């Protein structure tokens, strides 16, 4: 009852949602502490391609949701900051791509996911690994190449896995058909699970992406293709790399959605819609999440030769996914500034502790050089650098597809 009144209001007077008195009249503020237990927010509408109905633009959150989403986004930010420092300390080696600026995409999608939905992403995988259930230590230690890493330090930045999370893939675009294959398996097994396959605006031009669209549509695979458009494929802006920059329309015969990827609530609502769509047997979708990356493409890229510092600053100041969400939940009194401060402190401690542990952790022993090449190894001796000291294969991991 009150909800209808409220929705009506919302459509006409968006500003009202920030009006505390209004909430009080709806009885949604607890009398005890004067805080809202629930708040509704208006998001930028999705752009639609070959779709009739749109995801809702009004998102209702309770305090618990708000805190969880904030915590997740902020944890990813802290995690990436810490990883950046570890890289500068030369503890993290090789390739390292940070997700800072893009947190709302992953966190919003995760909010909409059900436990049996799967994810595969590209090389910017640290945040997703954490969201899918790996503790910060598992991510940090993996990056440090240490034994507590979720892949025992054998995968590194781009190769982390856990339940329903298939990586982390270092080959640009390869995760897209793999994701369609995971979706095929989910459908084949008779579940209503969907697979979310993420790639960047750079990868969007890979031929195999279009091959995957085609087969996913032919076979109605429950796959949601997500183009995280952060504006640049390495240093090449989307406009310089793509003849068509409306990535949500590039599936041609695959319906698409554009969503504001800097707004975690818009992403959440978009993916509630998308998961429902794909799970109900309607086939794939292509979703473009418009986002921004603050750091360079990788650690070797200062990220300033192909864009201006002003551009980055402007996004940070006006569209930062964490700051904007924080302002929303504080101004509606869902959460207090003190609570946020406390959470920030806890996250800092968690990440700092995990970082310390990761740094102090050991690398796996040399006996594991030859571990888990095969789930059933058939070679009694595996060739080493020289022919005199052959290696012996070991089995350690669970081999989830063994039986």
């Amino acid at each position: 009852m009150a909800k209808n009144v409220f929705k009506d209001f919302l459509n006409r007077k968006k500003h009202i949602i920030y009006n505390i008195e209004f909430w009080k009249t709806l009885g949604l503020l607890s009398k005890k502490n004067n805080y809202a237990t629930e708040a509704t927010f208006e998001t930028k509408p999705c752009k639609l391609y070959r779709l009739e109905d749109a995801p809702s633009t009004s998102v209702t959150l309770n305090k618990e949701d708000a805190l969880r989403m904030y915590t997740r986004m902020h944890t990813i930010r802290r995690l990436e900051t810490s990883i950046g420092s570890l890289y500068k300390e030369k503890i993290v080696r090789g390739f390292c791509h940070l997700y800072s600026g893009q947190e709302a995409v992953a966190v919003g999608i995760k909010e909409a996911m059900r436990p049996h939905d799967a994810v595969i992403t590209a090389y910017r995988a640290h945040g997703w690994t954490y969201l899918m259930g790996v503790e910060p230590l598992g991510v940090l230690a993996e990056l440090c190449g240490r034994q507590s890493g979720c892949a025992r330090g054998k995968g590194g930045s781009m190769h982390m896995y856990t339940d329903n999370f298939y990586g982390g893939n270092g080959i640009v675009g390869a995760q897209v058909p793999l994701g369609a294959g995971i979706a095929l398996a989910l459908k084949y097994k008779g579940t209503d699970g969907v697979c979310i396959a993420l790639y960047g605006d750079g990868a969007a031009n890979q031929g195999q992406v279009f091959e995957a669209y085609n087969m996913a549509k032919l076979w109605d695979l429950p796959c949601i293709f997500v183009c995280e458009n952060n504006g640049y494929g390495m240093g090449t802006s989307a406009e310089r790399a793509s003849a068509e920059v409306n990535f949500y329309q590039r599936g041609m015969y695959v319906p698409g959605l554009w969503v504001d990827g800097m707004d975690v609530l818009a992403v959440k609502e978009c993916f509630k819609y998308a998961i429902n769509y794909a799970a109900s047997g309607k086939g794939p979708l292509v979703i473009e999440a418009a986002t921004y990356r603050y750091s360079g493409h990788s650690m070797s890229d200062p990220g300033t030769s192909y864009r201006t510092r002003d551009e980055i600053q402007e996004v940070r100041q006006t569209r930062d996914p964490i700051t904007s969400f924080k302002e929303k939940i504080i101004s509606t009194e869902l959460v207090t500034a003190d609570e946020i401060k406390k959470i920030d402190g806890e996250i800092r401690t968690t990440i700092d502790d995990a970082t310390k542990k990761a740094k102090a952790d050991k690398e796996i022993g040399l006996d594991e050089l030859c571990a888990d090449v095969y789930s059933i190894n058939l070679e009694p001796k595996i060739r080493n650098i020289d022919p005199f000291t052959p290696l012996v294969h070991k089995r350690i991991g669970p081999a989830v597809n063994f039986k």
Partner: protein
Amino acid sequence: MATVKSLTLFGVANKATFARSFSTSKALSAKPMTVRDALNSAMDEEMERDERVFLMGEEVAQYDGAYKVSRGLWKKYGDKRVIDTPITEMGFAGIATGAAMAGLRPICEFMTFNFAMQAIDHIINSAAKTFYMSAGRVNVPIVFRGPNGAAAGVAAQHSQCYGAWYAHCPGLKVVSPYNSEDCKGLLKAAIRDPDPVVFLENEILYGVQYPMSDEALSKDFVLPIGKAKIEKPGKHITLVAHSKAVETSLEAAKELAGKGIECEVINLRSLRPLDIDTITKSVTKTNHLLSVEQGWPTCGIGAEILAQIMESEAFFHLDQPALRITGADVPMPYAKSLEIAAIPQPKDVVAAVKKLLKVK
């Protein structure tokens, strides 16, 4: 060092008082079956046995297979388990690999392995490396299969052996069967194997009939991956080959037998793991080694075998340097006479054996 060896060819021959019969003698009495039907029955039996096994590739369903290897399977198992794909190798190899990561047991058919070059990233980077990168978490139980090697009259783009390409890569198991028994037993093993297997068939052999023992006709017939088979025992020289080159070697061996030279012919069956023990044992006995393959020489299977023998004790048992017979180091020509000249023929093997054994 292996510079002085007391055993000459004739010395060995004189000492040989025992004679072993061909290992195929038992099977000769058995029912003949084409390689094509053997592959078909392997897939059929494994699909019946395990609901997770499915076949995907170009023309595998309604067309009954470009080479009719999957004949009848679509009628029996339907759209869900026999899936026609568009002509997009990279895409469907990726989809098949993703399905394997998520717990299914795909058989990914390439119309020929020439086209798998479009998809090789998924075979190597997605299928072969994921288990190691995930520290033993995500094993990828998939079979990539299709015809490999020289076909007839199709020129350079459609005639190439990829055995060495895949055998190069840790994380893969690579099988290169010769006859019907090999094909059935090894394809069943490959489908059951929890790791990615590249299964290299030979188009020219598809229609050839080979005897199938009663055992091989059984639904429980599985051959071990990684074990070579001695097709023909002999004591004077070891011929080691895979796929159609086994036939070339057997034909050469037959001709040489008429001249008193007994070749031991090893059918590798598997290129990775390579059964170097069987080769070593044979070389220890024959003291001579010749590898025979249709693929190119550079970094080839023969090159690997010779290097491994050179690095091991087996080297000291060699009376002569080991040699390779390979495809000529050129792209495959179309013209018939040139094509024949580019692929090892029995006469080439015979000549090399005679040269090695210093007989005329």
